């Protein structure tokens, strides 16, 4: 691997783009319900919503690695950023990173291996949702030389590289500043080595950043000022963009607005290549879905293609497994996937003597809409469906209570072994999984510890087939939100496609620029 020249001309949807220009301010809106909320502050180690605050983290800390892709979203790969290079041992049990020389935090202290180690140790000790699930060996973190640091695992861990862009270990904060300021002040005004420094931070409201003059990449960032602003939904955000109060919005998912924005000449809409498809998790532990026939009935009654057409204007792909077009190991077809077949569904339901299902999801616009559509489809097959959407806590409660029947969720990540991966939904003994199948556990474990990519691909494909054969959970729409940007704004991930890391794309803010 190695550094990227960075300034590659990024072609948005808005036609030919000239050379990047220096200067200007940019206001980015974030949905208050997701990325727009950072209640625990922006210290990567303690930010419990770190998974949704990737944008802010990138702007402040830069990142050891970044996920990049070609402008159309293809050829996605993790590249070093503050890390100059990395090296994975043959057996996949150790991983060594070499840092770029001469990077300084904005407080003037060096970003070296010691700093990275300090950050990692803090990060792993804290309860951040973006904490990586590394199978770290005892004393697994070793500083080799001032610019080199290595990790040792208890088992082969090939997903290590892919795990970086989504987790807090990617964001290196200044340990000196942390010590001087104390944790509580630091999380408000964190000090990193990223393209921007914090001017003002009102938690979950406004984050004002300005250009870091000592940024290690020459000529970057382009913008003088960058502001993240939390806003209460897609419609106000869209209006704010229209009114010119903001220039970008991450994570638009209201389809009618998306279509309206697409028709608006002043707006660039970038639909991200999806990485996590929707999945209808079925609880195989209790009735009715401990009966495979009931599960098959659900498969047979579900027509995600129709939902995609009807609700989403055919904007997305429909997956048959836990991978999506934007992610690794994607295959459009899964062998033996039980396709939509209403007659079969009816038959099964009749055989079962009726089927009553409680279908839940987390309250959000897209999920509720899909559930509503699913309810209709299933009812057509004679399945009696009640749907129920809950706040996050309600969903957690249902899962931990174990009494849920069906749950619409998203599955997967760019790399199925990293982040909220497939194991999270399908492994035995995990509270958020509805499956208890040793064979599947084994397949998934093997896949995550295999270094060879082709082999991994094969294992994941097998796992997907196993899921389909056992009717564990029908997959669906590979949904990803869109990014909205005003005309004249350009940047990788914002106006070009990069597969989303968790939900939103990891925009590389260093390279975002505005036509003056």
């Amino acid at each position, binding site marked *: 691997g190695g550094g990227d020249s960075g300034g590659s001309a990024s072609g948005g949807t808005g036609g030919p783009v000239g050379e990047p220009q220096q200067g200007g301010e940019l*206001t980015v*809106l974030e949905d*208050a*319900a997701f990325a727009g*909320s950072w*209640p*625990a*502050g922006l210290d990567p180690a303690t930010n*419990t*919503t770190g*998974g949704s605050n990737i944008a802010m983290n990138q702007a402040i800390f830069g990142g050891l690695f970044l996920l990049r892709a070609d402008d159309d979203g293809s050829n996605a790969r993790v590249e070093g950023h503050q890390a100059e290079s990395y090296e994975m041992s043959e057996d996949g049990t150790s991983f060594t990173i070499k840092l770029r020389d001469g990077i300084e935090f904005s407080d003037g202290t060096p970003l070296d291996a010691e700093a990275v180690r300090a950050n990692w140790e803090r990060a792993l000790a804290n*309860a951040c*949702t973006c904490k990586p699930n590394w199978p770290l060996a005892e004393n697994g973190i070793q500083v080799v030389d001032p610019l080199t640091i290595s990790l040792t695992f208890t088992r082969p861990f090939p997903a290590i590289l892919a795990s970086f862009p989504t987790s807090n270990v990617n964001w290196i904060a200044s340990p000196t500043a942390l010590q001087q300021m104390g*944790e*509580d002040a630091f*999380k*408000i005004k964190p000090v990193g080595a990223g393209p921007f420094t914090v001017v003002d931070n*009102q*938690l*979950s*409201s*406004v984050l004002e950043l300005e250009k870091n003059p000592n940024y290690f990449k020459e000529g970057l960032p382009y913008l003088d000022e960058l502001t993240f*602003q*939390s*806003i*209460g*939904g897609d*419609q*106000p955000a869209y*209006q*704010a963009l*229209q*009114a*010119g*109060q*903001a220039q970008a919005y991450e994570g638009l998912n209201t389809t009618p607005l998306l279509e309206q924005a697409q028709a608006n000449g002043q707006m660039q809409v970038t639909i991200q290549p999806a990485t996590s498809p929707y999945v209808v998790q079925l609880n195989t532990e209790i009735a009715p879905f401990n009966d495979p026939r009931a599960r098959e009935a659900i498969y047979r009654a579900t027509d995600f293609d129709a939902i995609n057409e009807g609700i989403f204007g055919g904007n997305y792909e429909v997956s048959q497994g836990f991978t999506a077009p934007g992610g690794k190991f994607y295959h459009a077809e899964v062998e033996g996937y039980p396709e939509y077949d209403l007659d079969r569904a009816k038959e099964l339901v009749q055989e079962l003597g009726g089927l009553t299902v409680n279908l839940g999801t987390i309250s959000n616009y897209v999920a509720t809409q899909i559930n509503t559509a699913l309810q209709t489809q299933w009812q057509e097959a004679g399945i009696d469906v009640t749907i129920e959407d809950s*706040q*996050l*806590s*309600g*969903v*957690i*409660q249902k*899962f*931990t209570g174990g009494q849920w029947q069906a749950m619409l969720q998203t599955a997967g990540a760019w790399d199925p072994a990293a982040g*909220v991966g497939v194991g*999270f939904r399908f492994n035995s003994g995990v*509270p*958020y999984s509805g499956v208890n199948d040793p064979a599947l556990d084994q397949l998934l474990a093997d896949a995550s510890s295999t270094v060879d990519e082709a082999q991994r691909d094969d294992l994941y494909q097998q796992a997907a087939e196993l899921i389909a054969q056992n009717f564990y959970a029908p997959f669906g729409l590979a949904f990803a939100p869109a990014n909205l940007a005003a005309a004249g704004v350009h940047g990788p991930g914002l106006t070009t496609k990069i597969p989303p890391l968790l939900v939103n794309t990891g925009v590389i803010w260093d390279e975002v620029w505005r036509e003056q």
Partner: protein
Amino acid sequence: MTATATPRVPVSRDPRVSPLSRLTASPVLRLVVKRLLMAIPIMLGVTVLTFWVLSLIPGNAAQQLLGPEATPEDIALLEQQLGLDKPGVVRYFDWLQGAVTGDLGNSLVSRQPVSEILSARLPVTAELVFLAFVVSLVLAVPVALLAAHKPGGVMDRISMMISTLGLSVANYVLALLLVLVFAVSLGWLPAIGYTPLEDGLWANLRGMILPSAAIGFPLFCYYTRFLRGDLVDQMQQEEYVTTARAKGVGSWAVLIKHAFRNSSFGLITIVGLNLGALIGGTVIIEQIFALPGIGQMLLQAINTRDFVVVQAAVVIFALVAVVANLVVDLLYAVLDPRIRYGSR
């Protein structure tokens, strides 16, 4: 007052009148003291109720923060760190002890002192509420007067239609429509964001016009309807109005100088009762206009189960409601001579 401390200083006032009794002799002062005393149990009740209600909400800050992927061990650990493992009663008294000494605690989520959070956000909400309130009131009075001047007349009907409209449109829809018209189409006013007062009065006001209109318009409608009704009642039923007319006072003067003065008391009551609703309105409106105020904070705090912050916000809101009603009572005492002299 100092007289009691240093007896040798000649006391010019009647020595039998203690400072305390002199204080209590003023009915207005006594009213203030009495109402302030009454506020104590109310505020206590509010805090207890908040604690209780919040305890009903499933989930706690630890769970909420760590999200669905967190392990039970992580959650238990965080719970312990945040002190959430203690029983509710203990937590309440801990909190109360702090609150009484002016320490509202630290946010469960960010560990920031609540007082710091509030001081940053209070000005925004206060300004919003103040503007909404003033705008609604300032507009309601002339419109109601116009309407009441000729009940059943053209103005009356128009104001009736407008106010019914205002009362049947949800304020969040109104907010979005206002933005669509004034920010998107006309581009006169900003759609979102808060500019602090330090950055210039006009810049600050520009940003507040739409949100305060969204909150204020339904109130304006409500006040207009109320005031108009009361004015008409006064004009038709009160004998002193006839007296004024018999003096030769013109119809507008009767309405403004006589009837309005008496109607204002009813209006004040309504305004006082409404202030709570006014603040409630900020929760949604701040969300839409991306204003960093208390309402926005409250909603986030509820979602993250940051009960220390919720508690503080509720206390602030309740305090405003209590103070508003105190002010209403005082206004009565100041404006209504029948009360001022304590012989009703």
